[in-house]
């Protein structure tokens, strides 16, 4: 068994912590990550821990197609995505409490650029998010592993040194245009659980 297979086997075996890997999110008011509350007009699917790299992730169409991710009040030093088993000396994708808006955008930029994928920022502007001032950014990306062209939108705010963010990515053909309206609606409805 050569190295890639072994790695794959190990990776696969590490994936599951139980049986059902996807749970249903019923439409209505939903609390995500214990701290962020949103209103979903339709049902969604939520990946369990193992498929979602630790960040609560919703999808309509499935793995590696569309993703709606929730970062619910990340504290100083928390990673927005795990450091992969890749080159050492890689700066971890850690949120820092003192980050300004541009730094948060750069953080997501690095996240989506990993592994040789491209990230092109299209626009970023101030908006209201989780009941206060925040930002919304749009981007396009080419996924290295299969050359798939994606589009994405992110909303974020830093409140009391914590990061609140939602990101939505989907293939630029068909899926992003079809799914973005719902993602926008969820983001607009997002508030911090009191």
């Amino acid at each position, binding site marked *: *068994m050569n190295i890639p297979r072994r790695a794959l*086997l190990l990776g696969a*075996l590490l994936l599951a912590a139980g049986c059902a890997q996807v749970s249903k999110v019923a439409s209505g008011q939903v609390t995500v990550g214990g701290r962020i509350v949103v209103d979903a007009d339709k049902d969604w699917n939520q990946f369990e821990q193992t498929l979602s790299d630790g960040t609560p992730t919703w999808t309509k*169409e*499935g793995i590696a197609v569309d993703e709606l991710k929730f970062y619910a009040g990340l504290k100083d030093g928390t990673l927005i995505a795990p450091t992969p088993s890749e080159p050492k000396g890689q700066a971890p994708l850690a949120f820092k409490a003192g980050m300004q808006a541009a730094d948060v955008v750069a953080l997501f930029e690095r996240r989506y650029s990993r592994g040789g994928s491209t990230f092109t920022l299209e626009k970023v502007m101030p908006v209201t998010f989780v009941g206060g001032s925040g930002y919304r950014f749009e981007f396009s990306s080419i996924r290295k592993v299969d050359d798939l062209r994606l589009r994405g939108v992110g909303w974020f705010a830093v409140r009391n040194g914590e990061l609140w963010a939602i990101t939505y990515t989907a293939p630029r053909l068909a899926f992003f245009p079809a799914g973005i309206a719902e993602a926008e609606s969820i983001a607009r409805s997002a508030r911090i659980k009191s």
Partner: protein
Amino acid sequence: MNPIRRLRSAGVLLLCAALAVAPAWSQPRTPAAAATQSKQLAPGFSHLQLGDKLLLMPIDVELYSVSAGGIDEPRADWTAKAHANLLQAIQERKRAARVDVVELSPDKADDFAEQSGLHAAVAQAIALHHFGDPMWALPTKAGRLDWSFGDAMRPLREASGARYGLFVWVRDSYASPERVAMQIAIGALTGIVLAGGAQLGYASLVDLDTGQVVWFNRLARAYGDLREPQPARESVDALLQGFPGVK
């Protein structure tokens, strides 16, 4: 995750996967088969119309042999044969089914690279979430084959005049225990744990106008041979099992 938890998780995963293996093995003509067939069809779709035209996208097939030394080698001759056999079998079905099939010429293929790439990504999701182990099922799909490309496939319709696109993907290797380890790994991801050799693949029929995936079949089994016309016909039958008829 500490090593002990890891092992336990691995065990649980394999158990879950193993429990769900059964449906993938056989293709009997029973009520179970009928249930399988409806699983393969999008809601509201049951057959092709007389005169419908199908666009056969470039077939993505790779055949491997595992040598005595335990190394997988791609076999161009086998792959070429499998390709030819698949094509021939599809053409035979076309004649039998009185459906017009046109092939997308290789020089045109580049123009539709994004559509092909998108289909491949979605097909993997369908193979995993709809045909894989139930633990991967997407609850909102409620067991339905319900994926659509919207208007993204219309350029293909315009270029070919075809109503439907047929996408075929096959990975197959002929051998031995060596590959078993890989198959277990793939199995863990897709819900199939195979003891012997494996044919992995899918065939997908997409309405190029509405973008709806109207029919899909996933192949995952321990036998089959695409290299020679006779056994290849059987493999293709398995790949195209449940392919919609014409009315």
